[in-house]
């Protein structure tokens, strides 16, 4: 599943480690989500969206809407 995590993180000048600490996950988890190797659970996806203050669909792209 594609997402805008890298862009959103870069806009805030956060490193992967910064984001990982705020989400209480490992840096490798953030990296796996960012690169699309791992799709987070719904609770973690909501946590990510809430951290950025955005609706979940503004962070994660629905597979049905991917080009």
């Amino acid at each position, binding site marked *: 599943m594609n997402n805008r995590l890298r862009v959103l993180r870069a806009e805030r000048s956060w490193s992967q480690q910064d984001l990982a600490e705020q989400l*209480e*996950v*490992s*840096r*490798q*988890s953030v990296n*796996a*989500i960012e*690169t*699309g*190797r*791992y799709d*987070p*659970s719904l609770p*973690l996806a909501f946590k990510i969206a809430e951290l950025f203050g955005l609706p979940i669909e503004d962070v994660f792209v629905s597979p049905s809407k991917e080009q």
Partner: protein
Amino acid sequence: MFTSKRGEKMNGAQRRYMWRFLPAMVVYSLVIPVSSSLIDGHRVDGVTLIALSIAPALPLLVAIAAVGLYLIEETDEYVRMRAIIGALGGTGLVLAFGTVWGFLEQGGVVAHIPAWFVFPLWAIGLGLSQGLCGLINRWGSRP
């Protein structure tokens, strides 16, 4: 059981796993030569023989429990998924190897091997599975 990147601290579940698993392995490494030498020397029998025979298995049971508790306690869902894939890889290797070897043994093609081989084989399968997953992730990752 889990893979940590360089410089990354272990979380609570990982620390508890290490505190359970490593002492169990130390005890195992101390018990196995004592048990083997006493049994091989035929200096024991009866209940003592049973106790000495089962003694090396006990720390391994603690190690197996440590693995199970870690999978339950790990809060990082991605890391937990990686650990579960590794454990499934180990289990698959044990099942595949045991099945093939069992039929070869029944046909008299290979010698009998003791059943305790399953735990080290499972650990090897876990390591191989995690290594393979790491390679696939590296090759398959999107920029």
